[in-house]
Every structure is written in structure tokens, then in C-alpha cells.
């Protein structure tokens, strides 16, 4: 399974329209300006499309919850993309 981080970075740069945006495993929603509920939805949809995966309803909520960061998103993507094989 390829590291999803580079593709994820690209998705973030497109959704937030910022070619300089850099995310790390520690990044959370508070760290990225413009990450509100509408962009969150756009992000989920873009990630699903990019990786060919589908998030469950609860997973979509959890990704916004306190304590969640890009690291947890990366794990979830890796797990799902593997399962999709």
C-alpha cells in the first residue's frame, strides 16, 4: 500500500485552493484557515474520489471530532484502501 500522504497533500491544496499548503500528521482542523463544515464536506468527497474509498456516516463525523488530526485520517485511508483490494 502506497503512502497516501502525497496524494492527500494534493487534495488539501486543491480543496483549500492553496498551492503552498503543507500538512503533517499533527495538523488539525484548527490549524488550517477556512476548514469549516462546508469545506469539510468538500474534503471528504475529494478524498473518497482520489482514493476510491467510502467513509461511513460515523467516520465522517469522527474525522471532525476533538483530538483527530491528519495522522488519524491517513491511518483510516490506508486501512480502507487496503480493504478495497
Amino acid at each position, binding site marked *: 500500500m502506497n503512502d497516501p500522504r502525497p496524494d492527500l497533500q494534493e487534495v488539501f491544496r486543491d*480543496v483549500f485552493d492553496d498551492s503552498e499548503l503543507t500538512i503533517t500528521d499533527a495538523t488539525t482542523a484548527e490549524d488550517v484557515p477556512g476548514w469549516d463544515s462546508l469545506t469539510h464536506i*468538500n474534503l471528504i468527497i475529494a478524498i473518497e474520489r482520489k482514493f476510491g474509498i467510502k467513509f461511513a*456516516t460515523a467516520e465522517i*463525523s469522527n474525522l471532525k471530532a476533538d483530538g483527530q488530526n491528519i495522522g488519524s485520517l491517513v491511518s483510516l485511508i490506508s486501512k480502507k484502501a487496503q480493504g478495497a483490494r
Partner: protein
Amino acid sequence: MLPDHAFRVLTLGGAGVYLLNLCVWRGHVVAFGGERCSVPSDVQLSNAVEAYLGASTSGNHREALKTLVAGIKETVAAGDFTNSAVALRRAIVPTLDYTSAQTLSRISKTIRPQVKSAHKTRLAILGSFTTSQLRDFIELALFASEIEPEIYEADFGVFRQEILDPGSGLYEFQPQLVFVATSWRDAAQLPQLTDDRDTVDAHVRAELESWQQLWRTAHEKLGCQIIQNNFECPPWRTFSNLEMRHPSGLGRQLAMMNQAFAEHAPPYVTIHDVDYLSAYAGRAAWGEERFFHHAKMPCAPEYLFDYAHSVASLVAAQLGLAKKCLVLDLDNTLWGGVIGDDGLGGIRLGQGEAEGEAFQSFQRYVKALRLRGVILAVCSKNEDANAREVFTKHTEMVLRLDDISCFVANWTDKAANLRTIAETLNIGLNSLVFVDDNPAERSIIRQLVPEVAVPELPTDAAGYIQAVERHRYFQAVSIGNEDLKRTEYYRGNALRQQAEESASSVDDFLKSLEMFGTIRPVDDGSLERTVQLINRSNQFNLRTKRYSSADVLAMLGNSDWITRTISLADRFGDNGLISVILAKMETDVLDIDTWLMSCRVLKRGVETLVLNDLCEIARKKGLRALRGEYIPTAKNGLVRDHYQNLGFVQIDHDSDGRTVWELPIAGWTPQKTFIQQRTTDE
């Protein structure tokens, strides 16, 4: 120094533009040098658009879109908003997925304030679900049609209050169009298990009445056109297969509601068939609820741009901007094979052969379009006689020569032919849709004649219908008799043209036509066609004021307004309703608000007929003069001297080219025409 039989070719390579020296030597094409040209950025950008449109697999698609987006952003950064707007518009297709549409929407927001759109409108969106993404996508789809909307988006879920509260933002905004964005969840009364048929019938009646009341309230205050969603069916049936037959089936009630909307919505309400959109996508896919639960989105995100495209197509049609003419290539578009090579017996069309049946099915679709008012033309690289022979002799042809209003088969380049077709039919290039199986041909036309819509076609003829259908080119908000007879009108015109060519003088020609003109006020029967003409006439149109059927109905009810429609017939057939006048009585003057005419009947005497009628009205009402205004546009230079030619005197003008004219009634006498008149008084 170039040898004999050599030529230079401008070619577009991946890295730029090259001028190559080529010659034919012993049967081969040989290159013997060339040079790199400086690269105009819009050529590279054009290539990027073509690569994106032609990319068939989804992998290619994303890469091509990335390249295109980068190209557009560079062009924007360089301050070239015109070319970036052109490229962006061509990239907006109804099959855009959610994420790509979001990307293009973001870019469009940087471009739109910097370019002037040909058309404007004021659109209110009243949603019972989250409308923010749909709003962005509607703006994007409208941008592709060169419509720049001013939008009022109501807060979530308050559509009824917006309409019922006279002090709401909706009324302050004064929209021309109101989109009531509701869904099946807004049906007031869902059936209970114990309901019998009579109870459900009563629900449906009550539901219809409550919506009619909302529409009436909005329309009375705003005079606007309303776009109202019908009810899509959710992807479950509690009664399973019995859903449509059991009295308390939800699907049954929603279907009855939709039928009630279709039959009883007034002319000022356009019912937007969301139920069809959902069925087209597949109810289960469309109705997948994750994003409804999270964000109250009306459908699964991948269908949202198509939803917006559908709404935008209704707005465009309302403004008279639907396409009018389908131009068809022949070989491998209407039949399999090449008639010039394969002959009548060798082309693949019709029974006994699957591929032939696919082409025939496409022809049936095209024929159905023409029967309901779409004009057909042929544009083919063929000997004219060979091409025509298929239409006259092949037993499996569904389309016949009678269906084709302009038949062009020759060896001239298609870009020139398309211009000829537009000129012959007297319609704008932007009214044409061009269908051709050859990707190179499509690409060239998109670049050389960008006003013409050129949909991508799959290699499989069985996909041709959808390739055209999904663009909603020929969106209709109404169909009237005029539409159904359109091809006949063009045929009559061809006969008239022949008569004109053989007549010895203009007067002789006009006399020989034996014309009858009928002048009457706008009425229920002529309302659709009148509004069509008001919204589609660009050339013979003095002020280009667009009105909805709601607006015209308001004028009919107002005794200060004079409305007139003129129909013209001659010995070759009926031209139908070809001119519309809207005039307002002011203190001492009859002010001509709208004077437009179909270009089919230029210089027949209709202008004089109208003038005579208006002067007679003014005289009877004791008015001093007629007053008219000319507002110049890119398309109506034809009528700049219209009032001057009719004997009006210019009383005002400004630096934009606007002129105001008056014709005093005192001392005026009716002018002669070759049209025998039938007038119906108000």
C-alpha cells in the same frame, strides 16, 4: 528555397507551435526542416481544453484537468481574463464530478468579475435543503452559457416564510426568476397506512392547493417566473412491488402529486423534473443519504453538478438561449461506413445488424427532435449527389430530405460550411449544435468556430443519443404550434427564395406572394410564442427587453398597455406569428416599448402594416404621436435606421448610440403594403 510540390504546415506539438516544411516524394510525405514559433498562450490553453474534453478514461481525465486548471490559473495570473474565460467555459460539461466542479467554481470566481457576460438575470434560490454548493454550481453552469446571474440565496429551510412575508429579503431583491428548491421531504402530508383512496386524493388536492397558493403569492407581488421542483421518489418502497397500487403507498402519492403539478401548474411556473434527474442517475445512487445526514445535501454529491446544469438549462431556455439547430455529419454519424466508398449496399444502417440498429435508433431520436421544433442541417464531406441518394433511396433511413432544412455536402472545410448554414437559416452560430464522429473534426470546429456547441461523442454509435441528450441543448420551457411547424416554415422559405429570384421586381415578387396579415392582441393561445419571440429575437429587436410570460400577462391585464401579435401567411404557407408589439399609452404619446420581428419576413411590408395599426390606435385615442427608441446591441444593427425609414423624427440620442424618435399623428395617412389585412379589435 522550397522545392516544387512542397508546402508549409503549422502544427501544434506538445511543446509548442512549429512551422514544418513538407513535400511529397515518391508517395511519401517528407519533412525537411522547420522552425519553432513563439507560442501564443491561448493556443496552448486551447490544446489543454481539447485534451481534457477528449480524455476518455478517468485516469487521463484527472491528469488532463490538472493540466488545464494549471493553464487557466497561469492565464489568469497573467491578467488575460478573456482567454481564460473562453477556456473555462468550454471545460464546463454536465458530466463534471463534484470535486472537479468545485475546482472550476473556485477559478470561475476569480474570472467572472473581470469579464462581461452577454446576459444577466436576477435569480432567487429558496431552498429547503443546503443550497450553497448547488448555488455555486448553478453559477458555474450559467457562466458556461454566458449568463451572469445576480443571486439571492435564502437561509436554509425558510422558503415558505420568504414567500409569505411581504417584508422578506426575497421581495426586496425583486428577482426575475425564483427557484423553489424543495424535495420529496417537503410534501406536507405523507400517507398513513390507514388512509384509503379518497383520503389520499384529498391529500393530493390539498397539497396542490397549498403550492398554488405559494406560487400565486410570489407571482402577484413579483410578476416573476417560478421554477418549482417536483418530488423525487426515495429509493425504498415500504410496500415493495405494491407501492404504486396500494392506496397508502408513498410512491403512489408522490407520483400523483407530480402528475398534479404537471397538469395544473400555471404558465408562470416551470416544473423542474427532479424526479427524472433522480431516475436518470439511478434512484439508489442519487438518494444515497450520507451527505443528506451530514450536510442536508439534496442528492449524492456526484450528481449535484448535473442537478445544477439542469436548473441552469431552464434559466437559459427562459432567456431564449436554448439551441435551435442540430447540424449532422453523415458518415459514421447517421450510418456506419462511408457512403462514397461503401455505396448504398455497403453502409450499415438498420435491421439485421446491431451496429446498423444503433445508427437507426440515433436517427429516430433526431427525427423526434425535429418533429418538435429543432431545425436539422447536414454538414458532410461528400459528393452532394451521393449524400442525398442515401436519404432518397435507402429503405432503412429514418431521416429524409424533408427533415433537413439546410443540406450541405461538399469538399469545403466544415468551419466555413457551418457559417454558411447559420447564414442560410438566418440564425446565430451560437444556436448550432454540431455532431460529428471524427474527434479531429470536432476539435478543429471547437477552436475555429467556438460559438458552435460540439459535444464529445463515444466511438460506439449506441452512445450517440446520450452524448447529445445529456447537454440539454434543446431545453424547452414551452412548445407551441410554431415549434411543431418550424421545419415546414423553412421549406416554405426556400420556395419563396426561388420565387424572389425569378421575379422581375421587388413589387412583383411581393404581389405574387399573395400575403395575408392578421393583427390581434396577445391572448392565451399566442402567449407562448409571443414570449418565445420576446426572449429569442436578437436582430430585428429595437430595445431587446426580455419579458417572462408573467410579465406579459401583467400587461394584458393593464389597460394602459397595447399588445399586438402579427401573423403572416402567403401562397407558400403560413409564416406563423412573426412580430410582437408592446406599447404603453402615456400622457399624449403611444410609447413603443417592444417592436420585434422574425427575420424570416424582412422587407415584406410587415413593418408598414404595424405602423399603420399603431397610428390608427394612437389616432383613436387622441394621442399626439408615436414614440420609439433604438437601443444598440451587438446583434441589432439591422434596425438602427428602422424608425428613420418609417418617417419618424429623431428627438434625442446619446453617446452610446441610443436614439429616441417620434412620429406625429396629425397629418399622417396609412401607407400602402402588399399585405391584405385582417385586424381583430381589442
